[in-house]
């Protein structure tokens, strides 16, 4: 039952959405395999997926630090200038006595995106070095996969656009350095999720486990 790395063997998988057992053929790069019954994407194969993902994750960490170091937008009216960084968005809620909203914004725009980038680098390096401490890496990767939906930086970018338009006729808006780093970060995060198939990592973690 254990999955094998040899490409002539078939891997038995159950579809997560409909539980149908099916044998997956070894796919070539650029191909995707869907469940025959419900159409769920079971596996996608990207060329050199681990290396590329690691590169994107490392770039992501750098851009994340840059995006958080400076204000991404500033507003000047009446001779007063107000600026906002990623952190001050959640800080504003805290100061207005809305701790639940502050925590929600803090986790979805800073903590989860950062943890997922750092965690991804740790997992990918461990897998690449073939030094896998399964008791550590597997729960970490599980955590990353289950909190994936809660990192909402791309939603935040749309919100920035809406806010800029809403304020446009009220005051002068200056886009900061962080804004460009932020946009680049969104692109890198998208490329990361496109290049990595979690199944590749699980396959590595499954090696040597008797089932």
């Amino acid at each position, binding site marked *: 039952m254990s999955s094998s790395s040899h490409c002539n063997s*078939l891997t*038995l*998988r*159950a579809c997560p*959405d*409909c*539980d*149908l*057992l*099916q044998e*997956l*053929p070894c796919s070539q790069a650029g191909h995707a*395999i869907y*469940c*025959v*019954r*419900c*159409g*769920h994407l079971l596996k996608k194969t990207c060329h050199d997926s681990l290396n590329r993902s690691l590169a994107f994750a490392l770039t992501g960490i750098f851009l994340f630090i840059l995006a958080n170091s400076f204000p991404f*937008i500033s*507003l000047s*009216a009446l001779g007063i200038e*107000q*600026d*906002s960084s990623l952190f001050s*968005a*959640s800080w*504003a*809620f805290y100061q*207005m006595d*809305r701790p639940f*909203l502050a925590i*929600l*914004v803090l986790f*979805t*725009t800073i903590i989860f995106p950062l943890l997922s980038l750092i965690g991804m680098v740790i997992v990918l390096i461990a897998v690449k070095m073939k030094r896998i401490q399964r008791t550590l890496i*597997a*729960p970490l*990767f*599980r955590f990353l996969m*289950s909190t994936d*939906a*809660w990192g*909402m930086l791309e*939603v935040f970018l*749309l*919100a920035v*656009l*809406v*806010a800029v*338009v*809403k*304020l446009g*006729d*009220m005051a002068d808006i200056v886009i900061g350095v962080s804004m460009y780093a932020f946009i680049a970060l969104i692109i890198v995060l998208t490329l990361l999720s496109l290049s990595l198939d979690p199944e590749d990592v*699980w396959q590595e*973690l*499954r090696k040597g486990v*008797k*089932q």
Partner: protein
Amino acid sequence: MKSSQRNRQTAREAGLIACHFCHSLVKMPRQRQENTELHCPVCNSVLHSRIPYSLTKTSALLLAALFLYVPANILPIMTVIFQGAGQPDTIMQGVLHLLEGGMWPLALIVFVASIVVPILKLVVLSGLLISIRFQSQWNPVERTRLYRIMEFIGRWSMVDIFVIAILVALVQFGNTASIFPGLGALSFAAVVVLTMFAAHTFDPRLIWDNMHD
């Protein structure tokens, strides 16, 4: 679709459990004592053939979201103070302001993210729960697809919360112009979070368990 298939059998019918996280297949022990948990040998998560109490949990979260949906739309999500006078804004009024400003593409995006998506989530999840409760035989492929779409778009409803966060952080010019978050924002955020959890605890495999083909 490139998958080969020997026989149409689910993991459960074959006596296997697929790990919810890493998808490893594990043999279900023939005799299992109650209250003992089975752990995945690969990722050490607790194994279940189906998410335990999936329908109960999803219904509870959905009901809570339905209740909070009312204050989320009635109460102001933010109060804009401009030259001393305060003006409360609900979600719908926010969309209308964008429309009045001639920003219809953006108004459309906010309308879809803040009004259409939450309603769609509440309706689709309720429909799925009811269809399973009454063992509906209606197109399981479409129902599974609806579930996947709903799970994918749910997070985009957060856009309004982030807009308020940015506006509150930026617009603090005392009595001249200030923006404060309202209780509607809190309720709306709770609706988004609760429906995301509800979608997460829903097990789409239950749709297929009911099918007798």
